């Protein structure tokens, strides 16, 4: 997030898109609901499902799946045409405005309606509402990013925020709600194929030299590595021989699971380090028991870039080890000893090589976490990014045209499928499915379908149906729901039985390499 969680309640208008906030970030959704219920903020929701948070919205727009760039361009078209944009901000803080203006020229509300299905007047109203407010906050989640156009979608939201001057102040911002406890930290720490910690590029000589010196090694690779979504197919064609997996369950979470399983079967060595014997661990050659959050000390970085303490409360079961200890012991056996007394000792090393974390110490975050960047021990942290200037100097408008998703419905597969999480489960369910109470509320996979579609396909609430895409077929229970919009069905991806990802499309965003989980085409029939 460019801004903080608390900032959400300081906005005059909140635009939520591609985020089922009440189910996936319930505590943040409470802030949104408080702001709206108290009359402090007005809410726009843009989502293909009529999700709970849309009940709080003044304006709810329902776009066809995979048409985000079109409606965002449409809003910007209206804002520029009606002269509602922040001309001072555009002039002082941004560049390439003319190119943006040229590309959004053709996205008239009427043209956007033909792509997105959003009635022209609704789009105009939403544009006026967002641009007319004092400070506007944009909240988004995987509904924006998990597309072949994911990078374009995010850039488009950034365009919209910059156009209205909504960056660099409290209450504003472009705010991705991150879905996992430490996904922010995993990125910050260089758990990515192209960067070291704090996003220092691996192919930058200075950065590479700095790390080589700090780590006292030679021969660091300066070529960008494979993304997770590239490793799987690389296993199939033999370029990847070994995969070491920590706390992940790609055999439920990856797209096009049948193919993914086939790929991993080609590996010569798979090591899995986890809490449980997951679907992925079962395929491994070696499985190593690790500790869960309640059994370890350390830090997580949350979605607002706040680095917070994690503290050990209980002993680990059996011989489970800290993940860092497993890795350092292995490293020692491969000729590179890493000796750390505890997690704090590792954090001290992180501070040395990570400018944005340099000022953070365990002592300073004992009671309350700090937002990075925090450059030195006197630095108060940075709750709001881009206050005076952007990282690159001026904010760059990207002129982006809408591209359709990789797969759309046709005669054979006439329905759109979109996937996501539900309130009672988390990711592949390895943790939540071991709570009987959570399971009682959400015991099995289901397909959410509109009453009209249920009638059209001759299926009833609670009945079982077969759902098939070009890549696979599953069975699930029918949930007829007012959240569903006719022509589009939703399946949660948590369940290994009735796994939504047997159906999803592994088509990737060309830059981010993120799969298009949010759009594919399926057909549906009563289960035989």
């Amino acid at each position, binding site marked *: 997030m460019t801004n903080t*969680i608390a900032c959400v309640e300081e906005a005059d208008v909140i635009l939520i898109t591609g985020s089922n906030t009440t189910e996936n970030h*319930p*505590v943040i959704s*409470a802030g949104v*609901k408080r702001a709206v219920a108290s009359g402090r903020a007005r809410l726009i929701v843009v989502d293909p499902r009529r999700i709970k948070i849309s009940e709080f919205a003044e304006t709810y727009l329902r776009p066809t799946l995979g048409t985000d760039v079109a409606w965002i361009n449409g809003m910007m078209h209206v804002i520029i045409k009606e002269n509602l944009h922040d001309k001072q901000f555009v002039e002082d803080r941004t560049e390439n405005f003319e190119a943006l203006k040229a590309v959004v020229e053709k996205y008239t509300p009427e043209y956007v309606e033909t792509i997105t299905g959003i009635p022209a007047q609704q789009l105009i109203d939403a544009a006026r509402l967002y641009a007319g407010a004092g400070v506007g906050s944009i909240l988004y989640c995987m509904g924006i990013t998990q597309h072949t156009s994911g990078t374009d979608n995010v850039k488009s939201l950034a365009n919209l925020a910059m156009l209205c001057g909504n960056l660099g102040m409290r209450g504003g911002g472009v705010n991705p*709600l*991150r879905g996992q*406890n*430490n*996904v922010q*930290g*995993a*990125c910050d*720490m*260089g*758990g*990515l*194929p192209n960067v070291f*910690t704090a996003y220092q590029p691996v192919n930058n000589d200075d950065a590479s030299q700095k790390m080589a010196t700090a780590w006292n090694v030679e021969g660091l*690779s300066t070529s960008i*590595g*494979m993304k997770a*979504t590239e490793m799987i197919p690389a296993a199939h064609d033999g370029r*990847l021989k070994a995969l070491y997996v*920590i706390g*992940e369950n*790609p055999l439920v*979470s990856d797209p096009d699971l049948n193919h993914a399983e086939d790929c991993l079967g080609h590996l*010569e*060595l798979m090591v899995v380090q986890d*809490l449980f014997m997951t679907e992925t661990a079962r395929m491994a*050659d*070696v499985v*190593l028991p690790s500790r*869960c*959050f*309640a059994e370890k000390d*350390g830090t*997580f970085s949350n979605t607002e870039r*706040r*680095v*917070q303490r994690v503290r050990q*409360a*209980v002993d680990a079961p*059996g*011989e489970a080890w*800290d993940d860092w200890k497993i890795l*350092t012991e292995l490293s020692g056996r491969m000729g590179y000893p*890493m000796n750390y007394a505890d997690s704090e000792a590792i954090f001290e090393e*992180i501070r040395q090589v990570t400018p944005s974390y340099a000022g953070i110490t365990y002592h300073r975050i004992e009671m*309350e976490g700090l937002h990075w960047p925090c450059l030195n021990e006197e630095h108060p942290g940075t709750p709001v990014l881009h206050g005076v200037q952007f990282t690159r100097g001026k904010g760059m408008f990207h002129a982006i045209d809408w591209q359709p998703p990789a797969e759309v419905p046709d005669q054979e597969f006439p329905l759109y499928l979109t996937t996501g999480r539900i*309130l*009672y489960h*988390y990711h592949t369910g390895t943790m*939540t499915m*071991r*709570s009987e109470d*959570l399971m009682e509320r959400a015991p099995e996979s289901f397909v959410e379908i509109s009453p009209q579609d249920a009638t059209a396909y001759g299926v009833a609430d609670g009945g079982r149906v077969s759902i098939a895409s070009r890549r696979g077929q599953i069975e699930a229970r029918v949930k007829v729901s007012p959240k569903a919009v006719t022509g589009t069905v939703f399946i949660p991806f948590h369940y290994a039985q009735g796994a939504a990802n047997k159906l999803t499309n592994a088509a990737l965003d060309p830059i*981010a390499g993120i*799969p298009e989980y949010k759009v594919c085409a399926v057909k549906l029939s009563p289960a035989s």
Partner: protein
Amino acid sequence: MRGSSEKGKTMADQNLLVMNGNEFAFEAGETILDVAGRNSIDIPTLCHLKGTTPTGACRICVVEVEGARTLLPACATPAGKNMVIQTESPKVVEARRTILKLLLASGNHNCAARGSDEQDWTEFQLAVERDDRSDQLCPVWGDCRLQDLAYRYQVTGEGLPGTVIPYPIEDVNPFIVRDFSRCILCGRCVQACNDVQVNKAISFGFRGSETKIIAAGDKPLKDSDCVFCGECVQACPVGALVEKSVRYEVRPWETERVRTTCTYCGVGCQLYLHVRDNRVVKVTGVQDAAPNYGSLCVKGRFGYNFISSPDRLTHPLIKRNGEFQEASWDEALAFVAEKLTALKENHGPESIGLLTSARISNEENYVAQKFARAVLKTNNVDHCARL
């Protein structure tokens, strides 16, 4: 003791009041309770819920203000210039004792504080047993605001006829037990649900002596808009709302609290793990800390059973002839080190990939990418941010 008086202002210009004989400064908009809280004067509250509009419902926070006709609720009375306030005067204490006595007589408050009238004790206990389906004491004995106050003011419910609560316990959901016989109708849960979480699942229903906190026109929680965030349980000052897994299982003094960060989504809620015998038995939100200020969701509050699940992996496993066999750490690590070294030598570093994790700590992610880069010599390191 003086409040923080500003230089250059005469006393007449400042917002000052006198509480229990000491002078304190206050800001416009502060209540008497706010000023007291800032200055470590303990005015007891029951219905007051931080961050919401005071209802003044329970009146336990009444104070004596010079010149006022009646005692005033500190939670809902704005601090006023030159007010002279007594927070524990005989009149105040008497009022609080009366309120507590009535509350203790208003339902199944069967802790020692209820008193033990020889006349009604057995009948009362039998009623509790019948309503409560249990012969034990109140499930929050020792962790109850009402009991604390009864003790502080030395009040029992003796001498007043116990009210019979006509509503049975509701426990048909997996998370929360609602015991209406212990409810004091303070309304904190209603505010927690409507004003803090804004789920609007519960409200006051019926009237007079039949008043009850209802969900969806008096249905069980599971059939209402309730999403089991448990904000109401955390707000309940008595034993009316209790976690199902905790009830009659966990006594508060048997547990230790450890503050940590939630393991589920990226909000990073601050929570306390309540630990007994090396097991997490309850979770609560940290009230005064960002980013969640006490709020949690159903996963954060109730989804902790996986920690002590019997399914946890406890030993390294090596697959031999298609079957996993337990191995020592030495064996397993030597096996992996040898295989990785050989693959690196024979096929090059780029033949190895490492998926680190969005679930593990910063420290562990750092070590993981360092291992990939410095030891394996590859940048094939990623995690599930995209998935």
